[in-house]
């Protein structure tokens, strides 16, 4: 229960910051000022937006399927929020450390799609329905390359446990029960004979441990943009052209929940990218000669310093990825539907399949 509340509070905090950052980043990239009035530099803007939404009337269209309409936002948010349960925030700090976290996450995130369809169908509005169909088509398609990219990580790490994958990517490798005698090699190639177990830092991140995962990371990142309906894959919503996609009929609190779910999805996919590819809560600074940077910036496992350092690295890496998501949104034009499907089925999926194969071969080099 405590974990639930803490995660929810943390998530709300991140989402508020993110919503504010989105507006500021967008403004700066377009040579504007962005919000300036609410609080210093407009920093209370997103808080006020939430308060405004909560005050608004909760309109349920007369012709809507009331049950589905009311339930959908909660289901969507619950599906995304449930994903956070298996995210490790620091060594020994994970809301629910289950052994098949990756599998669970992929499964629970897919529930999101059901919620989207419920919202679109329940609204009894052709635009909402079309928006929902597009969303679902897009998310279902892009789950394939994303899933394959994650699969290659799972093959390299030989684990479905997020926490174990995290431990593997740093100097704390041998502290995880079951991995006491594991070793990390530079680029994962044992034949090179360079042992990086004690060097840690960036050299043991998954994208360095098995450089083929760099490709997997790019694929996952692109697919994750599509899964969270972010530009350039935001046809379902297309704020500037369409009304709003599947949530066109929503207002007030339910809209706020949908909004929250959308931003939570962004945070979640970035967190997963960081954990699977970018060293999770491990420090990027390696131990080199006498400079034990990795040891200094890791803290003691299970202690306060360990939690603080772990949380700091995890969140700062996540924010870098989130910033990249924002920047991409304000840089690239939207893809057409056929281009979207072309990219998914004819480009990303075949490459992802090849990456899975290569990752398997790489794993053979690592042992």
């Amino acid at each position: 229960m405590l974990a639930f509340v803490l995660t929810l509070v943390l998530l709300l905090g991140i989402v508020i910051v993110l919503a504010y950052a989105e507006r500021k980043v967008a403004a700066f990239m377009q040579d504007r000022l962005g919000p300036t009035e609410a609080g210093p530099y407009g920093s209370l803007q997103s808080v006020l937006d939430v308060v405004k939404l909560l005050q608004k009337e909760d309109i349920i269209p007369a012709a809507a399927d009331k049950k589905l309409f009311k339930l959908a936002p909660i289901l969507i948010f619950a599906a995304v929020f449930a994903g956070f349960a298996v995210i490790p925030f620091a060594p020994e700090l994970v809301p629910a450390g289950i052994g098949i976290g990756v599998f669970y996450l992929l499964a629970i995130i897919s529930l999101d799609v059901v919620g989207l369809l419920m919202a679109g169908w329940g609204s009894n509005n052709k635009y909402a329905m079309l928006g929902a169909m597009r969303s679902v088509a897009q998310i279902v398609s892009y789950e394939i390359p994303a899933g394959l990219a994650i699969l290659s990580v799972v093959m390299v790490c030989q684990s479905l446990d997020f926490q174990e994958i995290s431990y593997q990517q740093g100097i704390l490798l041998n502290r995880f029960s079951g991995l006491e005698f594991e070793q990390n090699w530079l680029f994962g190639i044992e034949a090179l004979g360079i042992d990086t177990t004690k060097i840690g830092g960036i050299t043991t991140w998954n994208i360095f441990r098995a450089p083929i995962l760099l490709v997997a990371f790019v694929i996952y990142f692109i697919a994750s943009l599509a899964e969270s309906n972010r530009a350039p894959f935001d046809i379902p919503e297309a704020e500037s052209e369409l009304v709003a996609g599947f949530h066109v009929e929503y207002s007030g609190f339910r809209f706020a929940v949908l909004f929250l779910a959308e931003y939570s999805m962004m945070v979640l996919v970035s967190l997963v990218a960081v954990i699977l590819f970018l060293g999770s809560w491990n420090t990027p600074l390696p131990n080199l000669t006498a400079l034990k940077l990795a040891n200094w910036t890791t803290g003691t496992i299970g202690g306060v310093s360990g939690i603080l350092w772990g949380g700091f690295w995890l969140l700062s890496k996540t924010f870098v990825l989130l910033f990249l998501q924002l920047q991409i949104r304000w840089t690239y034009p939207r893809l057409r539907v056929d281009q979207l499907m072309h990219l998914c089925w004819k480009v990303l999926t075949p490459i992802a399949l090849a990456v899975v194969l290569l990752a398997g071969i790489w794993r053979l080099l690592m042992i």
Partner: protein
Amino acid sequence: MERTALKHKAGFWEVTKSLLSGLRLTWKHFTNAGKRRNPVPVMDKNYFNQPEGLVTLTYPYEAIPVPDNGRYRLHNEIDDCIVCDLCAKICPVNCITIESVKATEEIGMTSDGTKKRLYAPVFDIDMAKCCYCGLCTTVCPTDCLTMTPVYDFAEVDIKNMIYHFTDLSPEEAAEKKQLLQKQQEEMAAAKAAALAARKQQG
């Protein structure tokens, strides 16, 4: 640098390069966000030479100065107005309303030395109708009707858009009218008396 459009089937590296150059562009603008454009007036020679920085003008707190000869809200310096009615006549939308009352004695002089002989109990300009053509200011013989640099004068009630420039209170106006009437009556009486006297003589 010459720019060429990407072909539909450009190679992988071409596309990657163009994607990266897009990111570079937005990043450049992001890093320049510390700078602001100076709110210099359009007359300034640097007005068009500020390629960098945020363009937002936080209007009520700062404003770009307007040109001296810009056409904004009208102002009438009633002390200098000789109530010649020229402005009301030329106005294409008839938004100036002037009522005049002849003065019984000389009122004084305008600052450019013209004698004032008329009072203006009503001198209203309806800014809601005004089309800011500026004709009234050009015909004004004493240059008392001018354009000010004020452009932010929206009102909640449209009645407030009518500007009253008269310096006479209604009582004063009534008094002046009475004075005039009295003088005219006196003059008429004097005239009648003179006429009667001539008749008697003749």
